[in-house]
């Protein structure tokens, strides 16, 4: 079967993990790994037989056959340089930085509406884990306020996350509102240095609007969403099933990573990458159906 050629810019932890996920994809082909220096990530890709460049995006945009580009660099690089160059070159950008040049994408919630966009943003790891639950409740009983706490292991928080804690809280908050459907959102992130590292764990607390909707109906909607999540994030599970206290519904989820490149406790990195791959596969699938590959 034909595959759509894709490139990854930024051969760090995220970029390398993406590469392994692309190897497993049924309709994506890993056609280039791009960096700006001869890094470990570049060497790794080369040793696996993948074309590499240290010219960065400049080399990627010259490759006519590459249709989709994952950007795992930084928010500044994506916003100031990469997004413009990719658009000019007619390539679809899947943005894993918090730049949010394009609309937020949480595949289990809004991928269908975004499949014609040329630049989509993958929000944050915490957003990918929690927004589906907010949406599941918002679509049944309405959500006036949703608050999420993402606890991740210190070892899985790279220098980019650490230098930009506010980008996480602010981006996640906005997406809880715009994609999740809560009137008001709040996001908190906590790093835990425990050894062995903790699995990514997220608590989602929501104030529902329509208290006449039964908890059983809300639960069913959440269970259905968890099943949808498992299709692209196999390690996604409910740690504490929905608890109701008055108009407040609490859900705790845990994400075990697939261990592609990053260890299994890095569920935070796994879920944002899995979401990016799910989005790219949808777009690639449509391209192949149209014979555009």
């Amino acid at each position, binding site marked *: 079967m034909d595959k759509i050629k894709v490139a990854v810019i930024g051969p760090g932890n995220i970029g390398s993990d993406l590469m392994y996920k692309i190897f497993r994809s049924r309709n994506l082909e890993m056609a280039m790994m791009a960096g700006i220096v001869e890094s470990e990530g570049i060497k790794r890709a080369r040793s696996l037989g993948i074309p590499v460049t240290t010219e960065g995006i400049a080399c990627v945009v010259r490759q006519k056959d590459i249709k989709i580009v994952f950007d795992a660099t930084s928010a500044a690089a994506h916003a100031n340089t990469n997004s413009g160059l990719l658009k000019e070159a007619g390539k679809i950008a899947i943005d894993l930085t918090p730049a949010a040049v394009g609309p937020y994408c949480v595949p289990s919630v809004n991928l269908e509406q975004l499949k014609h966009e040329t630049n989509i943003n993958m929000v944050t790891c915490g957003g990918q884990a929690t927004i589906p639950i907010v949406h599941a409740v918002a679509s049944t009983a309405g959500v006036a306020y949703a*608050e999420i*706490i993402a*606890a991740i292991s*210190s070892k899985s928080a790279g*220098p980019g996350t*650490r*230098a*930009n*804690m*506010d980008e*996480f*809280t*602010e981006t996640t908050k906005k997406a809880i509102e715009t994609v999740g459907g809560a009137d008001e959102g*709040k996001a*908190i*992130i*906590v*790093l*835990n*240095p*425990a050894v062995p590292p*903790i699995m990514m*764990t997220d*608590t989602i*607390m929501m104030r529902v609007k329509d208290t006449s909707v039964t908890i059983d109906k809300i639960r069913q909607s959440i269970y259905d969403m968890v099943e949808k999540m498992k299709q692209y994030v196999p390690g996604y599970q409910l*740690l*504490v099933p929905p*608890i109701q*206290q008055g108009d*407040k519904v*609490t859900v*705790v989820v845990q994400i075990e990573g697939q261990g592609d490149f990053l260890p299994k406790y890095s569920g935070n990195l796994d879920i944002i990458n899995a979401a990016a791959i799910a989005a790219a596969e949808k777009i690639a699938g449509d391209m192949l159906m149209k014979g555009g590959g």
Partner: protein
Amino acid sequence: MEQQIQIVDTTLRDGSHAVRHSFTEEQVSAIAAGLDRCHVPLIELSHGDGLGGSSYTYGFSKRDEFLLLKAAAKQIKNGKLTVLLLPGIGTIEDLKKAHDCGAKAVRVATHVTEADVSAQHIEAARKLGMMTVGFLMMTHMAEPEVIAEEAKKMESYGAEYINLADSAGFLLPEDVAARVKAVKEAVSIPVGFHAHNNLNLAIANSLAAVEAGASYIDATLRGLGAGAGNTQIEVLAGVLKRKGINTGLDFYGLMDLAERSVEPLMQRPQTVDNGSLMLGYAGVYSSFLLHVYDAAKKYDLDPRDIMIELGKRRMVGGQEDMILSVAYQLKQQAG
């Protein structure tokens, strides 16, 4: 040379936990004005978990903290109105708002091993012209040498002193001394200490910190604070006076203020109850206390069992959401 100690009052911040974040404009006005009259140099006010802490997880503030800051700012003539900021909970936008409301100093707090998440916030605070403090929490969870390295990071971002917090009230006096000494040797800025009284050691530990070279000590009126509370400021003022250390504080004034303005609003006596003792014994973040009591009640469990499990799982400050998860799991196990 006579040793000078600066006392930082955090009644209106750590004390906020003990009143479930219910402070009103009238209450903070009276307390801030009184502290200022007693020559307290730094007066900290924000949600107990720092700016932006008002939430399901940490408890909603009865009154918006920015309104409280404005009310306190009006009363403070000599001291510095100070806020706490935990990166991951509060943001630089919150800090700017607090600054607009009259905050002149900020303490940027991270878990003891995670100092690098504070770089962005410390730099932003310095740009705003605020006095900026690097604040390491849960210092019982790391060895002195590790803490020294983290303190150096905060110094490099622009922190003007390093505050070491025994957030679980777990440390013994010799542990406090070792930590203060290690940090003092590693950095060229002053060092401070923040105690919790869960093992009844707040005053002893504060003294150990002073003897080891700390020059800032946190305290609260009547010891109002998370868990068994903090170092009691009026007691500390008396003890340091006896020791011949100059704090510049009005000893009688603080006693009167504690009696008139804080005692009437206390929701429970600030003693070492069984839950608080377990926090200190198991090394659990003091702010967890009232949330643990709530979860124990909901699931009909012994709060001590929840504390031990939280300690075992090495939960850090800010993970109050996990109390419910742990209680739920303990209940399932119990059948």
